[in-house]
């Protein structure tokens, strides 16, 4: 995600290596580099200036301990300051104590409001809440259709009025309807608007005044440049929103908007959106993001995602099969599927400490497993359950059935055998309790 920024800061810090003490001279060049890196990542120029000044101030007084290199020390200072800048804790949505929680979504055109609305509905629904959506974008052609498709996709109800063009009225009616139906949450999607468009800004202010939402979320494209600050300020002045949603963070290396917005409007970033799939939504954790910016990985997010899709029964079943050395291709397939549920493989790998830089130039697509799956799907039920019967002619049939070469089929079977042996060995050596039991990784010692 932030590979570029972390890479550049790492480079900047490299020049410090081998120095015995942080001094005015050796820190100045590094600060310049850090500032440049921040600007390249679209961090607001004022924020970048303040930031480097603060880091420098912190750094200068520091004595170098014998076993800490100046570079490491500076990384820690940069990390701490970045965390501070983005807010120190994760903040959740505020729900109404009783009755329907009303969430209002606002932002510029094309920032990803409607997609986020769908994702948020999915998330809240998965937490057991009864969610309804309201379509108040009465301007963009087919905006309501788009929301309808997403509502159907995640399985929630949509309130819409196709023959009305009054967003305030529709929002009001939606609230009445949601209350009548005893919905836990109503998410109101609105039209994209420019901060300088007074009429439109007044419209959303009226929606706010009229429905009195519990939570207003400002959605902003993470690729936004220096202007992110102005826009966030303008929306905040008009709406006094509660939180920020950063979208399209899967795209690319930049994300300076995260740092600038938080520091300029002093509102927490609550969610980050990392893909077009409805599952691609994460809570924003400033500390983790700072680690990520510095290329220190994001193990906690990874573990959390893994836990969310973790199925205890399935794990026990597989563990039993490993013990009996009975692992088959059906198990393999189900494991593949759960890895896929973690999200885009590249994003997942970027969360592993030290991998950030390595995956930067790696081309991993969502379809990385497609060929493997094709091969397994071309096996008969019997073959999948009993891989031992896979002789030459069966392999040939599977190859032509899956459109892969025999060599690829052979490789997969070989890999599967090796994996099976390894897992059996690991299992034996751990007394059958270790793999692939529940992950207990908690390297940061929290919770």
């Amino acid at each position, binding site marked *: 995600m932030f590979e570029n920024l972390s890479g550049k800061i790492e480079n900047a810090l490299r020049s410090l290596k081998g120095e015995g003490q942080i001094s005015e001279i050796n820190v100045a060049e590094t600060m310049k580099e850090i500032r*440049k890196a921040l*600007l*390249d*990542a*679209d961090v*607001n*120029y004022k924020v970048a200036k303040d930031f480097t000044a603060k880091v420098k101030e912190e750094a200068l007084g520091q004595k170098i301990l014998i076993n800490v290199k100046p570079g490491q020390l500076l990384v820690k200072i940069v990390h701490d300051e970045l965390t501070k800048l983005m807010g120190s804790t994760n903040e959740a949505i505020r729900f109404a104590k009783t009755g329907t929680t009303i969430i209002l979504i606002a932002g*510029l*055109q*094309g*920032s*990803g409001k*409607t997609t986020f609305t769908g994702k948020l509905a999915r998330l809240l629904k998965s937490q057991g809440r009864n969610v309804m959506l309201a379509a108040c974008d009465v*301007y*963009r*052609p*087919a*905006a309501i*259709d*788009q*929301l*309808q*498709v*997403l509502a159907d*996709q995640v399985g929630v109800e949509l309130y819409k009025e196709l023959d009305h063009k009054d967003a305030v009225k529709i929002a009001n009616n939606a609230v009445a309807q949601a209350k009548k139906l005893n919905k836990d949450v109503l998410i109101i999607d609105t039209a994209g608007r*420019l*901060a*300088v468009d007074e009429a439109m800004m007044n419209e959303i202010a009226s929606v706010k005044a009229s429905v009195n939402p519990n939570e207003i979320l400002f959605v902003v*494209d993470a*690729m*936004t*440049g*220096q*202007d*992110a600050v*102005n*826009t966030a300020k*303008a929306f905040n002045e008009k709406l006094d929103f509660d939180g920020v949603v950063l979208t*399209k963070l*899967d*795209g*690319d*290396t*930049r994300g*300076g*908007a995260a740092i600038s917005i938080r520091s300029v409007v002093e509102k927490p970033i609550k969610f980050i959106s990392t893909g*077009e799939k409805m599952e691609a939504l994460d809570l924003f954790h400033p500390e983790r993001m700072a680690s990520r910016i510095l290329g220190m990985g994001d193990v906690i997010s990874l573990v959390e995602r893994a836990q969310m899709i973790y199925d205890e029964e399935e794990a026990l079943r597989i563990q039993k099969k490993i013990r009996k050395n009975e692992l088959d291709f059906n198990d393999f397939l189900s494991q593949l599927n759960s890895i896929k549920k973690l999200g885009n493989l590249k994003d997942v790998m970027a969360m592993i400490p030290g991998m950030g830089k390595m995956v930067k130039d790696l*081309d*991993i*697509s*969502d*379809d990385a497993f497609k060929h493997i799956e094709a091969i397994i799907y071309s096996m008969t039920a019997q073959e999948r359950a009993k891989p031992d019967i896979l002789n030459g002619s069966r392999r040939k049939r599977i190859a032509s059935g899956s459109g892969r070469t025999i060599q690829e089929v052979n490789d997969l079977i070989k890999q599967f055998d090796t994996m099976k042996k390894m897992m059996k060995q690991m299992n034996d050596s751990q007394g059958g309790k270790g793999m692939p039991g529940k992950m207990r990784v908690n390297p940061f010692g929290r919770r």
Partner: protein
Amino acid sequence: MAFFGFFGKKENKEKLEQGLTKTKTGFFDRLKSVVLGKSKVDDDVLDELEDVLIAGDVGVQTTLKIIKNIQNRVSADKYVSTSELDGILKEEVSSLLLRHTASDEIDFEVPSVENEGKKVPYVIMIVGVNGVGKTTTIGKLAYQLQLRGYSVLLGAADTFRAAAVDQLKLWAARVGVPIVEKGMNADPAAVAYEAVAEGIKQNVDVVIIDTAGRLHTKVNLMNELSKIKRSMTKALDNAPHEVILVLDASTGQNAIVQATEFTKATQVSALALTKLDGTAKGGVVIGISDMFRIPVKYLGVGEGINDLQVFDPKVFVDTLFDK
């Protein structure tokens, strides 16, 4: 055609000026405050100038280049007063902008193309990341071309984003042009192929192909884009004749990576810069013009059907720097 163009022009400049007012006041108020109380261009002034350019999304690399050029001129001319500074700045920026935009056309025009001696449609493919305003730009472009007597056909090859086909259909109806669509989740390459084939059959002047927004980091989706492009060549040699990358003016330095990656996948031949009516500075144009030999062709300055302009570098710089 020229008749309409003549009428449109003055209005155009006003609209662009409106859109850029934010940029202009911001830029010049700050430049003035830089210059105030000083009679010579010193390091402080250049430092402040650097901030002004960075704040306008011009980007570190381009900003340093501009500053360096100014520094060189200052040291060559010795006594450059700050009142000359904005003249110099204007020249520097113009030179970056104008360098790769050779064409003098300032009206909506498409060349007529022939294949084996027969007139065929001029095929335009529209690409870009999510949410930059591709579909809206197509609607507005179709309208402007139609107004000037071109017959236009749209191809709905964004078959992925929810309701994208519906959105383009509404635009087609609004402008009054035919559309080729095969619904959602259809193969976009097949839609593009059919749209070009249909354009030949109906003998239209222009075919515009919409594609799904995609982040330039998604390898598969970028490959798909290349495939969509190839499928058009199968329907018509040399099609698409133009690939327009749509960029959101509020995008920061990422726009440069986008330009790089989309060019790799589809040989982008022109840029359209949208949402210039917001607070975005448009400085990104300077950076991109400097780094790529791809001209900026269109500017989106609002949501109305009329809010698309042909990019005129001269007007753009004049409007940006006029006091």
